[in-house]
Structures are given as structure tokens and as C-alpha cells.
């Protein structure tokens, strides 16, 4: 069995384990979706009981888990009590929205962080490195909640950008190009928040990785052979720094579905965040489990991408170090 097959099997087992735990905790938590109805004097206890048995909530835990697995295998991923539809169709739309936002933000964050990290590492201890360090420290200490609120405040004050939502009212009536512009303008605030929030950590990790390679004996040896400038950076330093950075990229990918939940709720982006929040509050158990499983899947996929990248980039991993 080769390395990749082992990793895939490992990932599937992990998913199964997470599903059991998630299901157990979700179901064992006190209260269920229909508890709120009991407070309504117009709904008789008999109706509530009938609804509970209709949805199978009165069944014992293993049986419910079995039925859930069955529905997963059918491709429905359980049933949402609140939306009265299979979880899958619900999740697909929301996950798509989240991925649009987070993929864009992650891509942007890396595109900004990579040159910034490499630059500050090369300018270690100089004024621009210190400025970068101060900037990342400042950003690191500001919670993303505050960043989002400040951006929203600015948007509301200046009316330059829509504050919340994904598209404007009457989106359907717009032309293709206008639709794209509308969508992009709605993306700015949540995406900017995510970029600003993830930037400092990325920059610091990249700077540290590059710095470590810059101090490696083989970089000094290359300099001693008269290799310098861009050639040294691109041929010697960056390929060697790619090893730790591909793990970091795996983490970035792993967070694609779960890293933006709070920001989505604050900025009103109709992604997984608001859905998960509503579902948790309403005890819409299958939706919660579905969302958690989806983000677990991304975590596992992210680390797998990182592993594959490592194999591709590092001959020591690929060929086995002696």
C-alpha cells in the first residue's frame, strides 16, 4: 500500500470517527428542534409527539445514527427540520458561497503575504522589516470581529460599498457584467476582513521560514560561489522554504470552509456561517452535523494536498532520506 492510499484510508476513518462523535454530542445535548413548540399553547402535546415520531427523534441513538448513515449513503446527508428539505441541497448552496469568499480571500492573502514575508526576511532588522513586524503585530492583536465592524462602519458612512448580503435587490434583472460587478462589490468587505485577519500569521510564518533558509549553510555556500540576487532567492532560498510553507498552505486550505464562519455572520454573507449558527440555535441537528462534516472533510483534504505538495517539492521526502 503506498503513501497516498494510506493517507486516503486514514482520512476516511477520521471522517467516520468525527461523524460518530458529532452525532452523539449533537443528539445528546438537551432539547431538540420541537421543544420550542411545546411553549406554544396552540399546539397540543400530542401534535408535538406525533411530529417527533415522524422525524424519528424519539428513536434510540444508535438507530438514529444508522438512519443518518443510510441517508448519507443515499446522498441526502440527513434532513433539515427547519428547511424541510435534505441537508445536502442546503449545504451545497451555502458551501458554494463560502468557498467563493474564502478561496478568493485565501488566494489574495497568499499573494500579498508571500512577497511581503520574503521581502521582510531579506531585510531583516532594517526599518522596513521592523515596520512589517509592527504592522503584523498590530493586525494580529485586532480580532477579525473588530476589523469587520470597522470596515462595515466605513462602508455605511461612505456609501461606497454595500454593507451585507451577497447580491443587491433586483440582481436577477441585471446584465451579466453588472451582475459580476454587483457580486464583487458585495465581496469586498468580507474578503478584506478575512485577508487582513489571516495576513499577519501568514507573513510571519513565511518570514520565519525564509529567514531560516537564508541562514542555512548552503545559502552561504551559494553566495561564496558568486551566486546572488534573484537567482539565489528563486533557485536556492524559495525551493528550500517551500517545505514548511506547503504545510502552511494545507492549513489554509483546511480552513476554507470553517475559517470564515464568524465573518460571514457579521457581514451577512449567506455562507456556512449563518446557516450553522441558525441550525445550532434551532437544534436542527442534521444541518449542524453536515456542516461540521464538510469542514472536517476540507481539513483532511487540506493536509492531504500539503502532503502531496511535499512529495512533489522535496526530494528528501520523495526519495527517502538515508
Amino acid at each position, binding site marked *: 500500500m503506498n503513501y497516498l492510499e494510506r493517507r486516503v484510508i486514514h482520512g476516511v476513518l477520521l471522517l467516520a470517527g468525527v461523524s460518530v462523535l458529532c452525532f452523539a454530542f449533537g443528539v445528546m445535548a438537551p432539547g431538540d428542534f420541537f421543544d420550542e413548540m411545546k411553549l406554544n399553547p396552540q399546539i397540543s402535546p400530542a401534535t408535538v409527539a406525533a411530529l417527533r415520531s415522524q422525524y424519528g427523534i424519539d428513536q434510540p441513538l444508535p438507530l438514529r445514527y444508522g438512519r443518518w448513515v443510510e441517508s448519507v449513503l443515499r446522498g441526502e446527508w440527513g434532513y433539515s427540520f427547519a428547511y424541510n428539505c435534505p441537508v445536502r441541497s442546503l449545504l451545497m448552496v451555502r458551501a458554494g458561497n463560502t468557498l467563493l469568499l474564502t478561496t478568493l480571500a485565501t488566494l489574495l492573502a497568499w499573494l500579498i503575504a508571500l512577497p511581503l514575508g520574503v521581502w521582510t526576511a531579506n531585510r531583516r532588522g532594517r526599518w522596513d522589516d521592523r515596520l512589517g513586524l509592527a504592522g503584523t503585530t498590530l493586525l494580529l492583536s485586532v480580532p477579525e470581529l473588530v476589523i469587520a465592524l470597522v470596515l462595515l462602519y466605513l462602508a455605511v458612512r461612505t456609501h461606497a460599498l454595500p454593507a451585507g448580503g451577497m447580491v443587491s435587490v433586483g440582481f436577477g434583472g441585471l446584465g451579466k457584467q453588472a451582475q459580476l460587478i454587483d457580486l464583487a462589490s458585495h465581496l469586498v468587505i468580507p474578503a478584506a476582513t478575512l485577508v487582513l485577519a489571516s495576513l499577519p500569521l501568514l507573513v510571519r510564518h513565511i518570514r520565519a521560514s525564509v529567514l531560516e533558509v537564508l541562514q*542555512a*549553510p*548552503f545559502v*552561504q*555556500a*551559494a*553566495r*561564496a*560561489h*558568486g*551566486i*546572488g*540576487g534573484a*537567482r539565489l532567492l528563486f*533557485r*536556492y532560498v524559495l*525551493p*528550500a522554504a*517551500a*517545505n514548511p510553507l506547503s504545510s502552511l498552505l494545507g492549513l489554509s486550505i483546511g480552513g476554507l470552509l470553517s475559517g470564515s464562519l464568524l465573518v460571514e455572520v457579521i457581514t451577512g454573507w449567506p455562507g456556512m456561517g449563518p446557516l450553522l449558527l441558525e441550525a445550532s440555535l434551532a437544534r436542527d441537528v442534521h444541518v449542524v452535523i453536515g456542516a461540521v462534516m464538510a469542514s472536517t472533510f476540507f481539513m483532511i483534504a487540506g493536509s492531504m494536498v500539503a502532503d502531496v505538495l511535499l512529495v512533489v*517539492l*522535496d*526530494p*528528501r521526502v520523495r*526519495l527517502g*532520506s*538515508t
Partner: protein
Amino acid sequence: MRTVSGYSESATTRAQSPGAPGLLCARELTVCYASRGEPSSPALLGIDFDIAPGEIVGVLGESGSGKSTLALSILGLLPESADIAGSLVFEGKDLLRFDESAWRGIRGARIAMVFQEPGLSLSPVMRVGSQIAEVLRAHRQEGSNHRKLQVEAVLAEVGLTQVDRIYKAYSHQLSGGELQRVALSQALACRPDLIVADEPTRSLDGTRQKEMLDLLRETNRKFGCALIFITHNPGLLAGFADRVIVMYAGRIVEEGPVSRVFRRPLHPYTKGLLQLMPTSLQYAGRTRGQHLPVLPGTLTDDDHLSPGCSFASRCSARTQVCQTEFPAEVAPEKGRRVSCFNYEN
């Protein structure tokens, strides 16, 4: 202050440095590492030496003697925190006035270096052959096909037979001896006039050490490139180097032809080092439980800053004057110099 005036006096009175003037001349070379604005103890203190074209010069000293700083300053690779003064003239040009791009033209092309740990001095994620090709690429405008042929030729020159396998290998796939040869081939690629080798045999076992020394000697004869061989082991220099420079606490304490210095060392430090040299003869009569000889004491920062002779605290022959004054350099015979008040004892 005292040491500086004492030193410049010696510089004027001492005899002309041995070795024909030529390739590399260092005068009053001083290097200080500043830490957080405060200057720390100097790593090199007014070093004078000459390297003639094609000769092999051994630099002998223990850790902290400044020999590695010397190597790095010859290649302009000192960290930015280092202050360097004096002059370092290579083929008539003062290297210390060079900017980074001028240095880049010298490094690898005219002055090359072989590092201590060949395994660490090669990039782990790049094929060995490409790394040698990179050296050529940095200094010559040639097509990549031509460059590949040159790399294969230089690999053959350093005695590697399986050229194809080595060319495609990564550093972790090669043995210590192969790595050292690859490192040497990188240094040799552009036919430099001077190779600085910093303990290149340290990571090799005895047999490989001997092979490496033979190879260095052979390349020195074949290409006529001068060699500065830095080591802490005097045993490697006997029968290998032409001249030896003995360093202690950032200064040259003794210099001369290897055969004469080793037969009759003048400085107490050189004497101590040579007595420590483990030879099979010495051990033949030794019984178990006897300790190996050691040079008492260690080199400390105080020794660097002492107004007197920096070896005084460890010297068995020290006198009153050794504590207060640095011994001026004298030339007891042609081609030799020593910094000691009591070298005749």
C-alpha cells in the same frame, strides 16, 4: 590602546612577510563583531600575510582563534554586524572596497571556498549537477548543453567516476567522500586563482582525509591555484602545506615553512599544539589509564582584550613582561616570524 600601539610598532620593525608578493596581501586586517551597537572583542587583530600564486598555506588554530573569520573576510561573507579594517589586496585591488556586485564577480570565479560540512553546503532540494552548473552560470555566458559537459568534466577531475549518477543525485544520496569531492568541484568549476578550504576534511574518516588531501594537492599542482587550508589539526599540514600560519586569539603568532616550523617550533603555543599531535609512536608505549596530553587552560574573551600576550595565561614560559605588553613580531630566520618574548628558550 596599548595593544594597538604595540602592534603597529611591530608592523614597522618586522621583516618582509615571506612568500613572493602577489596574489593576496592582507595588511592590518582587523575584524570586530558589533553586538547591539557595542563593539565586542575583535575576532581578527591586525593580521598581515601574503599568499603567493600556487602555494598551499595552512592556517592552524583552535576554535576562537579567528581562522574562520579570516576565511569569511577573504570571501567578503562576514555578517553585516562585522566591522572590518585594514586592507586585503587581491591582484592589486583592495577587496575591502568592493561592493556586493563586485564581490559576486570575484567569489566562485577568482576566489572559491570549500566548506566544513559538504552535506550542509549543498542545497537539499536541488540536484548536485545543477548546483555545480549554477556556479558556472553565475560567471560565464554559455549554453546549458556546454555547461553540462563542463560539469561532467569537472566531476571527473575531482576523481568521481560515476559522473552520471552523481550529476542526477541529491545531496542526501551521496556519501561523505563524494560530497566533499562535489564541494571541491564546485570550487574548481571556474578555475579560481585561490581556494579557501575551511576544515574540509573534518567530517571524513582517516582514509578519506588522506584521499582528500592528495586530491587537493593534485588539483593545486594541476591548475596552479593557491590554497588556504584552515585546520585545527597540525597533522594534516605535515607533508601537505608549503607554509603554516599559526593563529591565536585573532593574531598570527607564528609563521614559516611547514617543515621548519614543525621541526623547531618557536612560539610556546605552536610547541603545545605539536606536542598534542597524536602519533602512533607516542601511543605505542602508552599504557591504559594514562591521559592524553592537553594544552592547559582555554581561550577566553579576556585573552583577546588583555594588554599583554594573549597566550600568557596558558603559557608555561611566561615572564613579567608577557602580562603587560604584546610581544612584537620578530624574524629569527629568513622566511619565519614569531610573536613571543621568549621564543629562544
